[in-house]
């Protein structure tokens, strides 16, 4: 089948998509956007988290055809090519990235969390990120990164795009 959707603001057309393919597979293998990760491909790890019409979803659980005509946002679209989004910068500054395989999904989930909550409490962060597994960090520095990003984005001068 042919799939048309908008990914990170750019309209994409791909042909010969097999009906059984997930949105994650199409992004990674057909659109050249491997930033969204494939740690489980069964909806359990959050490494494939993307925005679908503005809501975070596990791309591995979305059939490619379900994305037809819709807006998809991935980690590759969080910032302009030469810049980092404050959430990305905070993950680096806090040391929240080790192997980094969980990172793209966590960045999208955190981006969404801060957009909704501004400055989430730790308890809210834990609830919001409970679907994103990380095997390396023990999550402490991820919490640090969320706090740092939220603080920086709340400061009027920091001017992060939300």
């Amino acid at each position, binding site marked *: 089948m042919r799939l048309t959707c908008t990914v990170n603001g750019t309209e994409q057309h791909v042909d010969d998509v097999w009906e059984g393919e997930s949105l994650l597979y199409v992004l990674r293998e057909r659109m050249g956007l491997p930033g969204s990760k494939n740690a489980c491909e*069964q909806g359990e790890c959050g490494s494939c988290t993307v925005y679908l019409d503005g809501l975070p979803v596990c791309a591995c659980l979305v059939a490619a055809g379900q994305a037809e005509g819709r807006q998809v946002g991935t980690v590759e679209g969080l910032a302009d090519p030469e810049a980092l989004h404050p959430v990305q910068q905070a993950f680096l500054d806090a040391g929240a990235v080790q*192997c980094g395989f969980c990172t793209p999904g966590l960045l999208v989930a955190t981006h969404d969390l801060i957009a909704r909550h501004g400055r989430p409490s730790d308890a809210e962060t834990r609830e919001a990120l*409970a679907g994103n597994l*990380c095997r390396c960090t023990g999550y402490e520095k991820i919490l640090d990164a969320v706090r740092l990003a939220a603080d920086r984005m709340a400061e009027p001068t920091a001017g992060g795009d939300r």
Partner: protein
Amino acid sequence: MSTPTRTPTGAPEHLTGPGSGGVGDDAQRPDGVLKVRGEFAYGSDLWMADMLWGVTLRSPHPYARIRSVDTSAALATPGVSAVLTSDDVPGEKVYGLELADQPVLALDVVRYQGEPVALVAADHPETARLAAGRIHVDYDVLEPVTDARTALGHPTWNQVHDSTAEVTELSRESAHLHPEGNLVRHLKVRTGDPAPTADVVVVGEYEVGMQDQAFLGPEAGLAVPAEDGGVELHVATQWLHVDQKQICAALALPPEQVRLTLAGVGGAFGGREDLSMHVHACLLALRTGRPVKMSYNREESFFGHVHRHPATMRYEHGATRDGELVYVKAAIYFDGGAYASSTPAVVGNGGTMGIGPYVVPNVHVDCYGAYTNNPPCGAMRGFGSVQTAFAYESQMDALAAELGMDPVELRCRNAMEEGSATPTGQVIDSPAPVAELLRRLEAMPLPAASGDGEVDLRDMPGGVSNTTHGEGVRRGVGYAVAYKNVAFSEGYDDHSTARVRLEVVGGEPTATVHTAAAEVGQGLVTVEQQIARTELGVERVVVHPKDTSVGSAGSTSASRQTYVTGGAVKAACEKVRAQVVARAERLVGRTVPDLRLAGGAVVSDSEDITVPLADLLGDDVLEETLEWRHRPTEAIDPETGQGFAHVQYAFSAHRAVVDVDTELGLVKVVEMACTQDVGKAINPQAVVGQIQGGTAQGLGLAVMEEILIKDGKVRNPSFTDYLIPTILDMPPMRIEVLEYADPHAPYGLRGVGEAPNISSGPAVLAAIRAATGLPLTRVPVRPEHITGT
């Protein structure tokens, strides 16, 4: 042959960290920006326009004879390019890290569920999977051996007061899974009085379930056939050169024709020490003449790598009335599963360090590794020491209770220190602050009691499932301390190779560090840069892609890379520096004793000399390559276990605070505190990250993580059923890092990664025991162990 369109490496060229950052700084990772932008190419991200997908057909049976394999229907499937079996392996048909006993593809017998039997390459992964399902394998199913002691013909323990003496005889009657029998290794430690007596004796039997590394990045790589008849493999792994050696043997190709480059690695924790898809992808690529990508899904990953050995252990501790340890006897069984993998070395660690960081005059340890038809077990962070720590620390608590002593006090009274002898007769010749680690934990404030103020369900065991508002919830506090060898032991020639180049690029002095040491997420690439910055006084340091065009760096395991590859990089930098200094002295025409490199120049403090490297080097390139070794260790005596087995020890301690819903058996870990001596923190932020991550994996094993095996079959090969800690499961952590230099190690550093993974779980177990008053001798602790239902 074209190159992959996505830079197929974990350390793409021109990786340079932002700004300065030498040894001791919180330097940022050079791959960090790529990782947060989603542009870092992991093994599973590699892609070439004309590539095929490889998949593996695996045995559904834990033990069976193969009568026949029919691949014709699979081959006839449109889109399929190749179907291979063991007949298509041109070289050695078996491989292994320490013993070559594992078939590349099944020969006449399969010995575990998930053993690879055949391979398919096709133009779409689903086509390949469909075709693999069409391969007809005729199995003669055999009765599996699924218990280590049964495999060895040893009696099972059913009463804790049975003597340990009766388990020393090996019966040869049980079915032999391998020609030499089912014993992989038996390690003995004997010191002191063989028949000691003591005022107070405690005996316990303990069991540790099978843990999975559960790294998030799947086993993956891309094999590209080369014009010289060889192959280039881009793969996520832990030790490129040991892979290369095994791949060469299987392919019957010389090392020059099997070139490996590290792809981005999404965590490892020991699970990538053994080969997975490496040879398979190469076989398919060489057969089809096209690039072949293999990437396991999560279920296949559970079958595609070794796990942590499950263990059953029986310990007997004897002490004086005032709490001095007199003797420890232990029998330790590691279930190695179907193939040896690194079982011999795991037995080595389990046996030599099996009584913990305590001084004990009389020790009698038997540690066994056995073949069974369970999944193969091998390396996982903590490597043989995680299992025994649950047993010896539980014993210390039981002994403290028997003596009416405070558990921390008992530990401190018997703690190793610098100058103590280990049970293997090795005198510890660098700081061993075991007691201090515990005392510092004790001095830390405890978290507030759970009932204080308004109840937030999210702080309760069971969380927002709303299972309790505090009724039946009891708090417990537990302590544990552990130690672990750093680097490879028992006389192994454990070295690393570093190539360091210094040149001027675009007017800026630039160092390039080239090693084959695998970056798996821990931050070794950052450490390599930091060392080069400090030693060469330059800001810009490029980390060359990790590949086999430079000599071996040894494995990224055993907490060894910062020590060994760090040592190699430091030594190579020193040689480059000597060349620079000699040049500078030629330039100034005399010897200047305090010339050093700083700020991109050769400088002297005593004399007013500043020679910019840009001027001194011009277009010249200075390069040094060297192999570096830590001081040698030695093999241990086969009868007594005595010998200088380990080059360095790392020490850590944990305090766990838990709330337990005693009615439902649910556990909420409220806080973890950790103290660890790291000798010297090369990158403090990364050190803390290792401690936090290691703590989480230890906690996971204590309360939730287990591969469930029934009759040799894995019951839960998914993240739905194999649970690892989420952000909701992990509590806040308090961490204190001590830096007592080890005079034998570069910068005085100690390996960091494993120790906290060892002491964390036993502290959680101790805390649950304290909360419930139950003996709890098995991990992971399940709700029914607490409720007794």
